[in-house]
């Protein structure tokens, strides 16, 4: 299984961070994309951060990647997956809407 993680982007219009994780089988016969976003509030609370330097984006993203890689073959059951991290139910819904309507797989 091969995994390529795109650069984490900041979306000011949603106060969020997002990226794409592209996963393919070793022979490239199966592919899937995971669209991931996390709210500013979620990430800052996760690391109890006051400043951006205290937010370990790599540590968080690494855990997300491992979660999807652990699905092994099952991950290829859908061409696109959406993975949202937020503190509130509405944040989850807004993140999902953002990934589905404003981010292209």
């Amino acid at each position, binding site marked *: 299984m091969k995994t390529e993680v795109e650069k984490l982007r900041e979306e000011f219009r949603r*106060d969020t961070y997002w990226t794409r994780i592209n996963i393919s089988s070793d022979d490239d016969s199966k592919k899937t994309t995971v669209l991931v976003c996390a709210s500013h509030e*979620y990430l800052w609370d996760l690391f109890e951060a006051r400043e951006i330097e205290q937010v370990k984006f790599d540590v968080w993203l690494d855990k997300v990647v491992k979660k999807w890689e652990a699905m092994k073959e099952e991950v290829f059951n859908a061409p696109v997956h959406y993975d949202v991290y937020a503190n509130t139910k*509405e944040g989850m819904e807004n993140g999902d809407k953002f990934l589905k309507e404003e981010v292209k797989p």
Partner: protein
Amino acid sequence: MKFFIIDESNIKKDEKFEFFVYGGLIVDDSEIRVLSKQLIDIKRSFNIEEKRPIKWPNFNWDNKGQLDPEIHAKIKEAVLVLVNKSSSKIIIYLSPHDFYHTWNIALGFKLKSRMDPEKYLRAQKYAINVCLNKFNLYLSELKENGMVLADSFVEQFNHVLTEHCLSLYPDGKDRKLDKIIYPVVQVNNECSEIHQINDVILGAITFSMREMAQNFMPIIKDNFWGASEDGFSTILNKGINIYPREIKTPQLKEKIGKLKEKFDRLMIL
């Protein structure tokens, strides 16, 4: 002469945005009719009945159903743009919901919050005090006079709040608001275009503050009193007023700190 249209927003306590908002738009008398006409033109351009009120929430008006969500969103954005193009200013007051809600145990022993009448009244008085004082300072800067148009007070507290407003004027005991023409005028704002515009502004601010919601602040950030290239720092305590100023608990300090940081981030664009 300036008119300050004040209303309340986000009263219900929920997890979406934990602050009560009061205040609104300051409009020059020469612009009220222009803005009102522009809103009517926007309605016409979308084939919407002129009488139909435009508000932030999409609601069933006169049993004719809701607007198409896409059209409603486009109208609201057009309203924000027309405010941005005007010389209108925004002054708002924010205080935590806890300020006027009380926790109690409801049936089934589930912890629920309810609006506490005493706290609600106190929050309303604070909100009125802050908004009127800031409006008076704004008028002093311009060397102009102004008038305040408030949405009707809740009937239960109308008498007390009216008395409170009276006490703030030159003939009242505190003798503070020398630039504001007495009294605070209460209006049922359903039919007035300028009040509809105000509702959209307050709605846009409240909505933008929610987690991962679309951020409308960049469209109207220049309208906040005190706005400059330095962003939120010059708006704080002028266009955006967060209370209580003296914070007693660490939880509240954190909540208000996060609110200020969020405003700061949303104003960047």
